[in-house]
């Protein structure tokens, strides 16, 4: 046994000697696949829109004759077609909570109405009426937009708790949308102002709607909320949309507004999602970004440099730091899932196996591929790796 182990060890060392590897990337990229539909040239075949610790939801083109889109829910590695309501053609899922309950719409193109749907984690499908639900929290409350019957094409932001829907009104204009909510049922979204032209972000709490304002420009929109942190997009004084973070006081007053900037050379940015850790994700120009602690980074720089992915939009991040979005993979427009790389997964392939061990041993005694942060690869790092071994 000793002899065999020695041979194996020297083989690994030999591999290590010939392996040049830069600092491992922060994320592993996974293609969410499709509901078997063909890839489209100029629109995504799969759209990943929301993620929780329980599931990922979005929509995907199908193999149906008219290439209908259907909502899906991914649990583990399994993509489930959530179907459509009777008489409808398409469905899209926009929100999911940590129980796996998902919300979205079922509809037919060119109709004046659409139908909100709750897909419970247990498998039940419930119609919510003529609403466009966008988010669901852990208690099952839903942020939505309800069609205004007397004014087709316009909606009012709505909070749905149990069977009760509450019209949240607007900021004076003809339309508003409820796009996300927090655990206290504070709803954020966007509303036209009384002039019918300017769009502003809002938070509805304590029975009233607060205009969150802009970064000095005309337009803004609030797209996600976690606790007292709201994220979205707002125009700067020069009219450039920038990813924006608003913070609220516990009583619901506006505490601060932060311009999150944009990636270098990108024309604009928008923050699309955030998690409780305060990490924010979104789009800047042609790239998905992550913002944390005052720094915005291009997520394409944090996946393996040999990856055939280009990450275009990061739409959501869950409590475990997993990020979902849309990008191009070997030429196909697809939804992706970014999984934070395990510390021992040194080659960033999603496994902790012999290849990782080879890299660790190649860095033995140096700081390269150190796992535990003591700047030296040693037995402590080997123990960590073996403890995380997946084979």
């Amino acid at each position, binding site marked *: 046994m000793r002899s065999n182990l020695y041979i194996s060890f020297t083989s690994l060392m030999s591999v290590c000697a010939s392996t040049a590897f830069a600092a491992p990337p922060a994320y592993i990229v996974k293609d969410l696949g499709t509901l078997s539909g*063909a*890839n*489209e*040239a*100029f*629109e995504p075949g799969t*759209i990943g*829109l929301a993620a929780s610790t329980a599931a990922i939801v979005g*929509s995907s083109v199908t193999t149906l*004759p*008219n*290439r*209908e*889109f259907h909502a899906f829910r991914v649990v583990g590695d399994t993509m489930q077609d959530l179907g459509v309501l009777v008489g409808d*053609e398409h469905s*899209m899922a*926009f929100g999911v909570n940590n129980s796996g309950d998902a919300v979205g719409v079922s509809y*037919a*193109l*060119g*109709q*004046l109405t*659409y139908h909100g749907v709750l897909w419970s984690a247990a498998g039940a499908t419930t119609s919510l009426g003529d609403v*466009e639900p*966008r988010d669901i929290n852990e208690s099952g409350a839903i942020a939505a*937009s309800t069609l205004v019957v007397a004014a*087709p*094409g*316009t*909606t009012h932001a709505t909070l749905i708790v149990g069977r009760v829907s509450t019209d949240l009104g607007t900021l004076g204009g003809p*339309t508003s*949308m409820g*796009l996300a909510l927090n655990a206290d049922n504070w709803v954020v979204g*966007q509303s*036209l102002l009384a*002039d*019918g*032209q300017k*769009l502003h972000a809002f938070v509805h709490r304590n029975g009233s709607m607060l205009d969150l304002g802009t970064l000095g420009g005309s*337009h803004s*929109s609030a797209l996600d909320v976690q606790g007292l942190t709201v994220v979205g*997009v707002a125009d700067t004084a020069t*009219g*450039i*949309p920038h990813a924006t973070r608003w913070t609220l006081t516990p009583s619901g007053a506006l505490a601060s507004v932060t311009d999150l900037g944009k990636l270098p050379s990108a*024309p*604009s940015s*928008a923050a699309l999602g955030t998690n409780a850790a305060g990490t924010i994700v*979104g*789009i800047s*120009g*042609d790239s998905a970004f992550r913002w944390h602690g005052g720094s915005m980074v291009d997520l394409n720089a944090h996946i393996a440099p040999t990856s055939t992915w*280009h990450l*275009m*939009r990061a739409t959501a991040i869950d409590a475990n730091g997993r990020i979902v979005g849309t990008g*191009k993979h*070997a*030429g*196909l*427009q697809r939804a992706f899932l970014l999984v934070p790389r395990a510390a021992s997964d040194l080659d960033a392939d999603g496994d902790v196996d012999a290849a990782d061990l080879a890299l660790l041993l190649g860095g033995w005694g140096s700081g390269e591929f150190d796992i535990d942060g003591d700047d030296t690869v040693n037995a402590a790092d080997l123990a960590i790796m073996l403890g995380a071994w997946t084979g």
Partner: protein
Amino acid sequence: MQSKLVPTVVAGASCAVLLGYFFAGGAPAARAPAPGAYTVVGFNDLGMHCMQEDFSEICILPPYNTLRAQVIERGEEPEILTSDVSVIYSVPNHMRASDKTNFWTFAPQLFGVQLAPDVGLTGNRLSGTMAPRKEEGIWEVTGIPLVPVDDAGRLDPYPLGLITVTGSQGTATTRAVLPVSSEMSCSLCHNTPGISVAQDILLKHDSLHGTHLVDQKPVLCASCHADPALGAPGQPGVSMLSHAMHGSHAPHAASSGLDNDCYACHPGVRTQCQRDVHHGLGIQCTDCHGGMSAVGNPARIPWTDQPRCSDCHNKPGSDYEQPGKLFKDSIGHGGIYCVTCHGAPHAIGPATTPVDNLQAITLQGHAGPINTCIVCHTSQPKDSFFHKVKD
């Protein structure tokens, strides 16, 4: 899902034209027009605008939608207004674009212009003020950078634009469809594994024509192929884009496997951009436009040599298009545009899409041509209505 069309004769109104159809699918009960000082009717110029979501490699068509309107001051003798009122527009729930497409990242390379995000090629946004074209008697906003996804993420190729007229006599509003789709299914044929659809297109172009486009991405097709839709003059000696596209693809059309070959490139089996009264009666694209070889005939002038109503409609005593003008640009009945009463091309009422019938139903209580005199006249005219250019 198509709704049934039930023919019926419009009787009792001296201005009733020909045969009308009551739209049976989802139409609200007929009702009298709401009284007011103004009537405003909006319409899209083409009936469908195509665009892409991803512009990193190729640009066939940018986000560019055009909304027109006629404003009428109601009276015994109604007056078409091009002054003394303000006309504003918005596209409620489609108020953001720069976080849905990378167009603004690549616009400087494609079009040589530095556009502020969410601002279209003609300087207009998703809301703003419409400008009068006094000689034509219309109000217009061009180049609206509209994308086929609403602000919650729902695929929606038929957004409703909201137009509000304000003058000394009061206000009037209407809603008109601003159709937009990215369903250009190039991937039905351009689907070489491992490369993008755009890359496949450029490689084939380079192979066939000795160009080196694959090294010049992003490529604007109209930079060489003249395209009246973009006002692009093209390069001398290079075929117009319409000729090149239809001519070169004509031999392959039958291999699309679709019932309607046109939907291999034009949107599409899902979008069904041809949705007007003719479609409801079983008339196909090629019945009016001819086959691909006819459309690709170099002797044809794209966007000018289009089907004419008078090719089929020939009721004695009635006029159709003005000489030298298309249906979409022709007027009659004292300066009223044909499309004001009948609807936009490909959406001529009654359409198979309820959303396209909304405006007529709102104005007169039923779908189809606006043939209720008191929509514009404050009392029923004593004179009969004739379908004449000069009436």
